[in-house]
């Protein structure tokens, strides 16, 4: 096993003097140097700044107390603002943009002692399920280089899977943390809406977006979540509730845990190998004492349509700020203000972003608002009520995270609707604002990872993590993808 495999290995080695933060940082920068040419998980590697930061941590020993991520290298999805470090959201429109401020999650990671090593690739403005919509090239899946890592946070998932960082942050609007985590064989946590501040996250769909964590194991993902969670007056949607110690909730005990499985929804078309791995994991959980029960999510089949009506509407509004005036790209081909706006946006945005802005603008436009947007918001209420009803009888809901394992690069690029259907099991948690965790639960015959997703009640992130941790302990899942990593 490679050294510094877990966060506790890293912080323990530094605290005890067995390694310096600089040595840890060099180890991971070497791994990035070795693997990223073939994977392209990173858009920016801040090697010099990372080493300087690590050296600074080594000197400031008096401040180590309470630093839960002391010397831990972390990567950030490139839609999270980093002061003075390029932040593109995978878009040509923001090429070269260096934010004048730090996202709250970045401030919190630094306060916890983390070392930021770079920014990871993603679908443009987090719109996609394969990371193929990045303006800066695709990312490859470490398990099979001809396949997608999923998306939109595919760079963060691939970086953790290839052990280039022990933890990374992503954002999840309809599954953009959990689906790539599943496809790359790592853990991905989408916290409760409001649990983590979004100040400094480049907005896609504000009633759905949430920042969360990736790591190789549930305890490490929980540790990183604890570091970034909590109230922030700069994000009006952030919750004032106290943040529990998520590590303490990982007891391994699921004797009284009631796990609901929405059987009717799952028949809608999950890959047989995915269902096989899922069922075997459920059987192991039952063997550990959990109760497995059928639950109904009657409106679950509508989630994809509802989501793409609501998310695109919000995106069309959020992305109106990209007009060539205040940041990023401006067309050289305009002699009037109006033409400058229109051409900047057409030249700066990629096809998927324009498609979503068009759809969102349409469903909000006069004559269609009631029929599409308001109707979707009403069905969103019904979807929320389905979860409320289910959680009266169970503590968590289990589903495969993705209906398929990692799909070949290029397979769905020309078929947006097929790409959207990749999100069928993940979207519900966003529409209802619930916490959900994807944990690896097995491999297909072709050695592709399968993820199992636990969804819990709002603000009960701890129970979703406890279930995922128990699943991880009893899974026969081999990590990492190959000896190469």
């Amino acid at each position: 096993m490679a050294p510094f495999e877990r966060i506790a290995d890293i912080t323990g080695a530094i605290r005890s003097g067995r390694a310096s933060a600089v040595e840890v940082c060099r180890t991971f920068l070497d791994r990035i140097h070795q693997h990223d040419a073939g994977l392209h998980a990173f858009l920016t590697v801040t090697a010099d700044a990372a080493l300087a930061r690590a050296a600074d941590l080594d000197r400031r020993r008096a401040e180590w107390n309470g630093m839960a991520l002391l010397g831990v290298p972390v990567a950030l999805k490139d839609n999270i603002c980093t002061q003075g470090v390029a932040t593109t959201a995978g878009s040509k429109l923001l090429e070269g943009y260096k934010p004048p401020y730090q996202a709250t999650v970045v401030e919190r990671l630094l306060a916890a002692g983390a070392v930021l090593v770079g920014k990871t690739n993603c679908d443009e403005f987090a719109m996609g399920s394969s990371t193929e919509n990045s303006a800066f090239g695709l990312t490859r899946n470490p398990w099979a280089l001809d396949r997608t890592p999923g998306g939109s946070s595919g760079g963060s998932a691939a970086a953790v899977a290839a052990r280039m960082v022990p933890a990374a942050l992503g954002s999840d609007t309809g599954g953009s943390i959990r689906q790539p985590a599943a496809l790359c064989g790592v853990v991905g946590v989408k916290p409760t809406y409001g649990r983590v501040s979004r100040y400094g996250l480049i907005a896609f769909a504000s009633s759905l977006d949430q920042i969360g964590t990736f790591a190789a194991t549930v305890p490490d993902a929980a540790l990183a979540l604890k570091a970034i969670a909590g109230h922030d007056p700069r994000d009006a949607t952030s919750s004032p509730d106290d943040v529990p110690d998520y590590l303490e909730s990982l007891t391994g005990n699921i004797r009284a845990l009631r796990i609901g499985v929405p059987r009717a929804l799952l028949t809608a078309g999950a890959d047989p190998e995915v269902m096989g791995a899922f069922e075997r994991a459920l059987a192991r959980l039952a063997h550990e004492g959990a109760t497995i029960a059928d639950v109904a999510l009657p409106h679950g089949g509508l989630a994809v349509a509802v989501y793409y009506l609501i998310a695109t509407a919000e995106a069309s509004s959020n992305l109106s700020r990209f007009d060539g005036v205040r940041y990023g790209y401006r067309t050289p081909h305009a002699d009037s203000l109006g033409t400058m706006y229109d051409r900047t946006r057409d030249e700066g945005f990629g096809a998927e972003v324009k498609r979503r802005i068009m759809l969102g603008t349409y469903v909000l436009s006069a004559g269609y608002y009631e029929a599409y947007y308001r109707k979707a918001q009403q069905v969103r209420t019904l979807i929320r009520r389905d979860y409320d009803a289910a959680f009266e009888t169970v503590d968590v809901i289990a589903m495969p995270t993705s209906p398929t394992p990692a799909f070949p690069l290029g397979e769905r690029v020309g078929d947006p609707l097929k790409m959207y259907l990749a999100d069928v099991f993940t979207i519900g948690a966003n529409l209802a604002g619930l916490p959900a965790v994807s944990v690896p639960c097995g491999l297909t015959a072709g050695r592709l990872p399968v993820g199992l997703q636990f969804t819990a009640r709002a603000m009960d992130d701890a129970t979703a993590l406890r279930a995922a941790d128990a699943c991880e302990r009893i899974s026969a899942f081999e990590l990492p993808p190959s000896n190469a990593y």
Partner: protein
Amino acid sequence: MAADFTPADLVRVARLARLDLTPEEQDLFARQLAEFLAYARQVQDVETRNVPPTSHPTGAACPVRDDLVRPSIERDAVLASAPEADAAAGLFKVPRVLG
């Protein structure tokens, strides 16, 4: 029930969205948006009488704070991100608006 998505709708929406689409993009998006909207018809068939819309998942009231003057990001740092700006004058610059 909303009507079919037409090429005229596409031109109207591109105008609202401030996108100067190429003819190829217009053809592609007209087809793809029509396909998605056909898929989304299932939403319109759901009975939603007396169901309130959800615009926000927490349902929490919007918090308020005192309206106090506080330090913000330095103007020069903001202007440094702009594609064109007159830093000395403290202005963003855009193409001429009036003849």
